[in-house]
């Protein structure tokens, strides 16, 4: 276990380093920096400022200096947002995005598990068919389309929810639903398949044979086996929610990480974009590792290697 975690950590550091290096050199391949604007300061002052920020050194020296700063947790200053460092941007955005993400995941799990179990138990019925058709639609339709339709319906035609923003519980509902919808659909399909597999196994027959009710068999005995594919899907799901939140935060004007990322990308705020890419890498790596560990806890047949 310890070795497994250590090795993962090493790989993560390696990956981060690679991402850092690639983005750093890409950034420097592009002409223009924070101090090259229309109105140029006098040449002497410009040189002094550049020397202050080490911009006059050869690229590889800048690279080493920057790498050292990153190691100390200093991600630099925003190019475009006055008076903000990348750390401050992250500190402001991360709680917002995390809240949204957790809510969306909870919604996806609740809806997905319920729908999956119901359609597996009612296999072949009308309910099964309609739930699974709905799930396919949920997977196929992009989340910004869902978001737009829900906004038209529930904000303008029948005004129950506010159009966007952040702060009140009502403002959380629509974004969380839009963000979670796709994953609810995926989870429903996974649970249904897993459930059908498990329900055909001998131990389920045994459980029925000793006189248990369907509810007890499904929820206590079959559930454990059926939920395994969902656990391994959580890794990609978290990655997807991170990605999806970019669009959803943009659509609902929520000041989270995704919103800042789009802003930094469209306004070419490279330091912020780079910091966020690094942060997303760490998040994804951590989540994947957690999922792998959780899997071995749930299924003793699987060994970490």
């Amino acid at each position, binding site marked *: 276990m310890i070795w497994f975690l250590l090795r993962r950590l090493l790989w993560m550091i390696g990956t981060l380093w690679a991402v850092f290096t690639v983005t750093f050199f*890409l950034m420097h391949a592009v002409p223009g920096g924070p101090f090259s604007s229309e109105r140029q300061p006098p040449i002497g002052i410009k040189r002094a400022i550049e020397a202050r920020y080490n911009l006059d050194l050869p690229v590889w020296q800048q690279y080493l200096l920057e790498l050292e700063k990153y190691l100390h947790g200093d991600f630099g200053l925003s190019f475009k947002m006055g008076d903000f460092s990348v750390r401050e941007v992250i500190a402001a955005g991360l709680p917002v995005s995390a809240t949204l993400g957790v809510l969306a995941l909870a919604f996806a799990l609740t809806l997905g598990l319920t729908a999956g179990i119901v359609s597996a138990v009612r296999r072949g019925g009308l309910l099964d068919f309609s739930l699974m058709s709905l799930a396919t639609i949920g997977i196929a339709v*992009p989340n910004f389309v869902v978001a737009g*339709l829900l906004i038209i319906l529930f904000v303008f035609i029948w005004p129950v929810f506010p159009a966007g923003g952040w702060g009140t519980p009502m403002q959380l509902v629509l974004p969380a639903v839009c963000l979670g919808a796709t994953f609810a659909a995926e989870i429903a399909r996974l649970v249904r398949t897993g459930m059908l597999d498990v329900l055909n196994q001998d131990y389920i027959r045994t459980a029925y044979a000793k006189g248990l009710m369907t509810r007890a068999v499904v929820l206590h005995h079959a559930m454990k086996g059926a939920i395994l594919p969902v656990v391994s899907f959580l890794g990609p799901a978290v990655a997807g929610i991170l*990605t999806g939140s*970019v669009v959803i935060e943009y659509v609902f004007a929520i000041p989270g990480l995704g919103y800042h990322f789009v802003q930094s990308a469209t306004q070419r705020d490279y330091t912020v974009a*780079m910091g966020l890419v690094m942060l997303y890498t760490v998040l994804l790596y951590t989540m994947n590792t957690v999922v792998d560990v959780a899997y071995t806890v749930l299924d003793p047949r699987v060994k970490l290697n």
Partner: protein
Amino acid sequence: MPSPDEIQRYSALLQEAQHIRGVSLARDAWRRLRRNRVAILSLAFLLVISILAFLTPLLPLQSPYIQRLDLSFAPPAARPLWTESLKVDDSAAPQAGSTVDWINKQFGDISTFNRRMIELRVKLFGRWSLNSILGRDELGRDLLARLFWGARISLIVGLVATLVSLVIGVSYGAIAGYLGGRVDNIMMRLVDVLYSIPFIFVVIFLVTILGEDSVKARLEQIGIDRITIFFFVVGAIYWLTMARVVRGQIISLKHEQFVEAARTVGADRWRIIFRHLVPNVFSVVIVYLTLTIPQVMLFEAFLSFLGLGVQAPAVSWGLLANQGFRVISPLKIYWWLFVFPSLALGLTLFALNFLGDGLRDALDPRLKNK
């Protein structure tokens, strides 16, 4: 020397065998796919959409770019069904340069092939074109025409980027699987690592950097525009799953007798990989292909929706959905501008997903001859 009896028996057997036709995997799969009505419907839908998208310049549509500010936000109108919208400058037709002008003005800077199609369309339909049955946008441009021209970009991005990922994924997976041992180990560990990189963010980062004006100018000099970059970048990230799947298949196939046979007649390893093994994994590859195309199209739509993908004056469905989304306001809902692009995108992705699922079931070898 076989006895006459035996010869008779064998020839009878031979005759019988001649009547039995082997069922190839493809034929068998097709038979099973045909029974899946939803999948066939999806296939038909996709074929129709693709053909229409290809023939767009030939269809009697209005120009996707000409602005009619007097008709800004005109709602869908089906009456009269036909209008005389195209401005055909036939007075100046004899002079070579001027024919180019009116086409360029109304259809943008298009390829020679599309220009020929538009000229043919003018011969067929004259100035007549369909009225704006799907409404107009804020600049009075016809949404129907924009949807059709957008379809071309959305579909071609999905297809080409997926093919790029196909080539990379299949070669990578096949080589790793066949060579095995340490090479396989290293190659697959690399795939594991790449899986943990949030590529979508890296791609957005890349696209922004490559979209910087000076870089863009330099790239355009060597004939690379944003869409080409997009093809390769997206192709380069969606190959991971394909590589894994192909590797698994190759490993299970590489000890089969036909591989031994190829080796005994002296085929080298590249020939064995690409001529003997790869064709055998095509069924799996096709399934992943149909499931990757919607992902790529979704990604393009996602980027265009955020304003980081296809750029005006070019149109794609994601961009149209974004333009529709931005004019949703409490005052007036121009629903057609958001609903129709979303519908086009949603239906196509839906059909692709259904077709992919259907193909996966049809090509499942466990169901063979059932």
